[in-house]
């Protein structure tokens, strides 16, 4: 049996035999080097390992500063380098090939390298993280290009690389021109028509949301997977589950992340967790390096390539994923501990066409300030009612940013995420629907950190709204085809839910301004432009719309029993104004820099996610 450093450690009682057995078992399952399994599945602390190596006179080289002959690296496959944690450096004067390896005692690796390079090999110890970093940087080029352009090549009609098609530009400018012509020729009727259409659209989109919320609230009655079913799951039958954790400069959250992952009720050996770190993100990498307890994730370094977006990182991560199912979480997420088991049970019960399940999102810092309270109101209604409503009505579901659980094979078939779309998740949800497959909702919650800082919130929201606009434009390139694919109900739902959301936010301040001017000044001018009946309908639509929106927000927190938040729903009109501010910012960016990813800062909350009570429903 080939020996490795872990055997040495076990012999010296630095590593227990039970652990060794478990590690070797994992290494076997994943075809990893044992050291990789030990470091990435929570068996070994990196710092302890380095100390052990140094104690055995193994110099740990810094591969980043070592002289490198790329001829040897180019002969290596990134997947193999990543799995066995080695990096060929250069030929020595002695004729030996110097190879940096995380485990310089790995006999199996040594043998395979001798066969591969047909020369003597000298293994030197190096940090597994540095090997990973350099390996991906130098050899990840192909995969990263694939991650960026694969969708564009296979499904060009679904890629947001082109923001506005020619036809869409003709339509937009044509409409604007037409409106101007009508304003010049029929000033008053045109204004009346615009006003009526806008206010009717506003009311209708909110009525639609109310309808969705009511439909969704019925789903409280059904629980697809019961607690006893989860208890009764045979862990041996559970598949490998990949979790992708795309991060960027989230060094402060790494400890929290490990804590949250530990709380997941899923066999440790079957959790294939990938922390996706950007090439230039040394902060996060060093945070992982300096951990003083075992990490339970594998680091994947995403080589630099524009656009620097989360979907690109996720797409890259896919090439190294081993699971049957795949979930996406953010670094600060606290999923219900039984979420993964629940998803597996639900997938097993649902028809084959269900390829994605969306978990509910909510916040652990909901009472931190006004913004987090409003955010909680919004999310509660969105994830607890709206998505269930969409699912019940069989209307395309835009996926939320995290807690999406996919069947990995289907995800790859679909072309994965669009790196040019800044709400790639929403877009993917629609593409699933386009392909005749289904998105479901899982009754399990992931707690996140609510954005608690105004400008940070605006940036985040502007990205979301911009992404919704992008998604809308992409899928409306060929409305006839969309109708054929998703049916009239899906088409209608898509227009009101995806298109309508952004449009309502853009419209809101205009309607509010008209209403305020009329209320405060009773301007004769407004009365002269709009006859009484138009004003009647507009006021009705606007006020009814706002009241209903407040109401819908109240409903959701009621379900969550956040009773203390219910009155804050009254502030929804102000919250909508903030949305409008973000919507205009998003619109501007859609035109000027469509792929720009407004980074949201996490870890601003003073409240700890560990204080949040995670109660599986």
């Amino acid at each position, binding site marked *: 049996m080939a020996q490795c450093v872990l055997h040495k450690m076990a012999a010296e009682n630095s590593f227990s035999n039970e652990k060794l057995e478990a590690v070797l078992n994992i290494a076997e399952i994943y075809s990893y080097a044992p050291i990789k399994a030990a470091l990435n599945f929570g068996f070994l602390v990196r710092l302890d390992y380095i100390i052990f190596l140094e104690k055995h006179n193994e110099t740990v080289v810094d591969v980043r500063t070592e002289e490198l002959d790329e001829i040897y690296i180019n002969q290596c496959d990134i997947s193999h380098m990543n799995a066995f944690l080695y990096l060929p450096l250069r030929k020595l004067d002695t004729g030996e090939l110097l190879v940096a390896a995380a485990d310089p005692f790995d006999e199996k690796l040594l043998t395979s390298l001798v066969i591969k390079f047909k020369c003597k090999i000298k293994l030197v110890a190096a940090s597994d993280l540095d090997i990973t970093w350099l390996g991906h940087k130098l050899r990840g080029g192909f995969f990263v290009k694939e991650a960026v352009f694969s969708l564009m090549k296979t499904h060009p009609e679904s890629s947001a690389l082109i923001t506005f098609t020619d036809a869409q530009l003709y339509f937009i400018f044509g409409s604007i021109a037409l409106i101007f012509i009508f304003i010049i020729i029929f000033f008053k009727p045109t204004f009346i028509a615009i006003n009526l259409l806008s206010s009717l659209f506003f009311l209708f989109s909110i009525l639609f949301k109310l309808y969705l*919320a*009511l439909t969704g609230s019925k789903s*409280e*009655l059904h629980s697809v997977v019961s607690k006893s079913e989860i208890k009764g799951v045979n862990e041996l039958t559970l598949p490998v589950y990949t979790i992708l954790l795309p991060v960027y400069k989230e060094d402060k959250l790494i400890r929290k992340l490990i804590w949250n992952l530990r709380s997941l009720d899923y066999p440790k050996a079957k959790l294939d967790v990938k922390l996706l770190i950007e090439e230039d993100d040394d902060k996060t990498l060093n945070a992982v390096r300096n951990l003083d307890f075992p990490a339970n994730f594998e680091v994947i370094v995403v080589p630099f390539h524009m656009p620097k977006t989360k979907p690109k990182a996720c797409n890259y991560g896919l090439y190294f994923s081993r699971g049957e199912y795949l979930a996406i979480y953010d670094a600060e997420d606290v999923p219900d501990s039984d979420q993964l088991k629940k998803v597996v049970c639900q997938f097993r019960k649902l028809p084959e066409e269900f390829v994605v399940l969306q978990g509910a999102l909510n916040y652990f810092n909901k009472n931190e300030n006004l913004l987090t309270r409003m955010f909680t109101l919004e999310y509660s209604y969105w994830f607890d009612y709206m998505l269930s409503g969409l699912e019940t009505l069989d209307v395309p579901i835009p996926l939320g940013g995290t807690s999406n659980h996919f069947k990995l094979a289907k995800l790859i078939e679909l072309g994965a995420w669009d790196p040019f779309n800044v709400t790639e998740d929403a877009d993917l949800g629609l593409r699933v629907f386009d392909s005749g497959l289904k998105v479901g909702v899982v009754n399990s919650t992931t707690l996140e950190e609510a954005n608690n800082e105004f400008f940070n919130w605006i940036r985040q929201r502007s990205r979301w709204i911009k992404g919704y606009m992008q998604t809308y434009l992409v899928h409306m390139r060929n409305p006839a085809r969309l109708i054929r694919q998703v049916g009239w109900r899906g088409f209608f739902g898509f227009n009101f839910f995806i298109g309508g959301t952004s449009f309502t936010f853009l419209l809101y301040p205009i309607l509010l301004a008209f209403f305020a001017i009329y209320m405060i000044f009773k301007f004769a001018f407004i009365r002269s432009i709009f006859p009484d009946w138009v004003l*009647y309908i507009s006021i009705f639509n606007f*006020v009814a719309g706002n*009241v209903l929106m407040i*109401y819908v927000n109240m409903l959701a927190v*009621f379900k969550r029993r956040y*009773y203390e938040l219910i009155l804050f729903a009254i502030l929804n009109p102000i919250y909508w104004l903030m949305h409008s501010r973000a919507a205009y910012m998003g619109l501007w960016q859609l035109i000027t820099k469509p792929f720009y990813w407004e980074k949201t800062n996490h870890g601003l909350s003073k409240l700890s996610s560990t204080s949040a009570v995670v109660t599986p429903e």
Partner: protein
Amino acid sequence: MNRFIEKYINGFLAIVLLVFYLVLSWVLHRTGYEHPESVFIAEKIKILFDSNENNLVTLGTTFPTIVFLASVIFTPFGYLFAPILASIAFTVMLFYTLLKDFKETSKLPDFVYIPLVSLLFFLHPGLIYAAISGRGVAAILIFFYYLFRSLFRYYRTQTTFYLSMASIYLTCLVFCDFNFIWLLLAFFPFIVLVSLEGLKINKEQAPVAQYFESINNTSQRRKLTNRAVAIYIILFLLPLGALLLFGYLNATHAGTSTYFLYSQYANWHVLGNHPFGEVVGNLAKGSNSAFQSQILFQFYVFFLTPLLFLTFFYFRGKLYELFTLIAPFILIAILIINCQFYFLIEYYLIFLVLALVGLSFYAAKKFTKKATWFIFFIFGLLNVFTGIYYFKKSDDPDERKFFGIIRDYKYWLKVKGNTEDFDVAQYIASIADINNKVLVDDAAAFQIVAHLKSLEGIELPINKSFGTIVENPMSGVKYMCVAKFENRLKTFTVLNSYNLGIMEAKGQFVTEMVYQTDNWAVYRLYPLEE
């Protein structure tokens, strides 16, 4: 075959009931019976469709809105028949829903509840009145039913869905009868109890001990307050928001936010509610008004609705559900203080509906099948008799008139009778044209306007020129329809005999009475020179 019957029996019975109501309404109409509320709605629909001015005010301020809008749907069948069809539709819907709910939730055998519900809807005079009078009673009953059904379903499932549905139905109910907004207070005990129920700790202990613990624990108390407020808001935000909006629109377009409540042009109840003083002054010969005081009213309701005893029997030990059943009694107590008018049948019938909704939920097995059938049927039959008793003792002239016609079947065969308003309308129609306009104030004369074939040649308050013409009648009309001194509604209109004298005195015209009935007179106007 049996399965086929089981599947379609409810629908079949509903159709039979529909036909039954249609025939009865035709008979009633033939005898000349018209309820003023029904005619009021019909007149508003007529103005909405036949007049070219201020349609928005008619559409946007006529109250009860739900009853009005539901009647608009049936306009193709004729303005006068539309409100009746609407109320028939509501009643049949209630009948069908009840049968369906009994089947789905009560688990009672078909032969127990079908005879009970059918007996009531076919023979209870109150429900027949609700269906064919064309009033808003049926709309009140159905939304009242839906409201309480949603609340009971909420208790069972604890899902927000049913609470929000209750809120929507409550909004509809308020827009059928504004007085139901006082459920805001009436629901207080039940909301507190529901909140308590949700917060109880140590569920093994006796309920009193649980409540004691909940209330004496600071954190639990805070939760209790939050939950109670939350339920209140969820339940009442929609009705209050809707009223606020409606009030605002009234203020913008009719000048005052309470226009829909207090204007005789918008709300029949302004004209139709009989103040207590009027009733005591022997409005009719009944004695129901004697029971319309605190405590007595509630006892009288129990007397009139024996089924309530059965419902309360089934609800033993279900504390907060019992409080839900008590809420309408509290509502009545509030209304007695707040409204100084004679309560019409809707305030009694809601208790019959309450009894039925309660039974449909909790009438589980307590007796043998045969005994259950017997008890239910006997109580149902008693309810029919007490319904008849109610009408015999009603102090409302329209209710008594209705009952008189229904009871006296020989009267049905007589030749169709015309109402006084119909006759006046016929006369006005014969003289009015574009050159001979007639000034009519539909505040009091709405029944006349409703019977007009067309509004051509009629000057109504809805017309922008009405104010000017009232100031100077000769400028726009040749005739004037005036409420005589004997007319009960004379104080609601500017065109009454008292004002006519003033108008003559200050205007340059003299009048000649060309037509009159007991309550109305039509005058021709002549300039002074003639």
